[in-house]
């Protein structure tokens, strides 16, 4: 996920709960390769979910941390799995409440298809074909103690 752009304008923002760990890994990799410390943030999109009035409960809200101004920056959003695109829409809505980025890019570890919104990733770790009912589970050592991507196929009962 390297690119030849002006690094001084870049910032990385991970989407909780696993995109933030991936974002930290990307930041560390860029530090190792380029010697540049990019601003790193984490965003929780719970309050921006479009299904809050449809699901039967109030999901736990985690704290967002954007310790820099997003104004004029190129912000790379990072998430583990890109599926319907609804999480990304929420993340973009949340991000513009912090200011006006010059551009927002999207990097994901897994793109499993089945988009419901006109959203695509700029950087994809791996495209994984799935059925809509499948479950793609990303495990990261920071959160889950191991690095693994599992595709669980739902067997019709």
């Amino acid at each position, binding site marked *: 996920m390297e690119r030849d752009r002006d690094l001084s304008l870049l910032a990385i923002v991970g989407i909780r709960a696993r995109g933030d760990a991936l974002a930290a890994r990307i930041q560390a990799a860029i530090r190792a390769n380029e010697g540049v410390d990019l601003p790193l943030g984490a965003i929780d999109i719970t*309050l921006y979910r479009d299904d809050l*009035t449809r699901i039967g409960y109030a999901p736990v809200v985690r*704290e967002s941390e954007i310790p820099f101004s997003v104004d004029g920056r190129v912000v790379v959003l990072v998430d583990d799995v890109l599926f319907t695109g609804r999480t990304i829409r929420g993340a973009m809505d949340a991000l513009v409440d912090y200011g006006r980025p010059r551009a927002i890019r999207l990097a994901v570890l897994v793109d499993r298809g089945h988009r419901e919104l006109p959203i695509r990733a700029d950087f994809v770790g791996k495209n994984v074909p799935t059925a809509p009912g499948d479950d793609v589970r990303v495990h990261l050592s920071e959160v889950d103690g191991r690095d693994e991507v599992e595709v669980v196929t739902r067997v019709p009962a």
Partner: protein
Amino acid sequence: MKWNRRHVLDTDDWSREEIETVLDQTRAMIEILQRPIRRAPPLRGRTVILFFAEASTRTRVSFELAAKALSADVTNITASGSSVEKGESLYDTVRTLQALGGDVVVMRHASSGAPYFVAERTDAAVINAGDGWHAHPTQGLLDAYTLRDAVGDLEGKRVVIVGDVLHSRVARSDINTLLPLGARITLAGPPTLIPLAWRCGQLPPGVTYESDLDRALDGADAVIALRLQRERQESGLLPSLREYSRVWGLTADRVARMRPGAPVMHPGPMNEGIEIDASVAHGARSLIETQVTNGVAVRMALLYLLAAGAGGPGSLEERA
């Protein structure tokens, strides 16, 4: 953890886990209030009715800001200038609220227990914003949040509550919220302004009464001064305001008896020069303005917990 409360009427039966859930959600809400755009959308399309039948500025404004920060629509009903002044009964007001279709009713009332009456007769979630001498749960929660943020884990910490405990719903809600978090409470105040059973030693576990303020403050981890409720004073409970101020007022010398840096809190509005000196109220240890700021976030957390989700008042669940 699951959140299964439909209303917030009193915290006297809340578990430590429930209190901590609210405090954790409060932390996330504080971050929203620090953004350039202090607004998030989770309560879009929901209506919050603020029904204040007793005077209040900061609590009402705090709830209004909290509801608006979550994008709810807010309607105000006050006692003066409404049908309550024309003699409408609480029951009729409830029926009107029901017909208006609010999702949450935030209410303050001079009669203890009034929010329970409303909660039983409406589909809305009811938040008690202070009822008589009984309870002020959101104040207790915001005080707990502010204290924990300032001094860390409350386990074993000793908090002094000084003043008119008898008439104070804040004192009762502070005790209800701080005890489950592990704090110990020392009450101080004139014996006539302490509930009889408590004054006579029948105190809840973890609470003590101290008849001398200096001794109460020695080595304490924090102090909460209560407002002397002049509007609730029956004649004869106090010899004079001057004496009260001399014996029970928080001065810089008294505050210095606590542990170094131990914070000073007050629910407001203050009678400066009576229960608290101006130098203490605006001094380095004072968290009084922080309390006001945190109050908005605590109320956002409660509104979110009660009103987000399709079932309206629903349950909190971890996201997969």
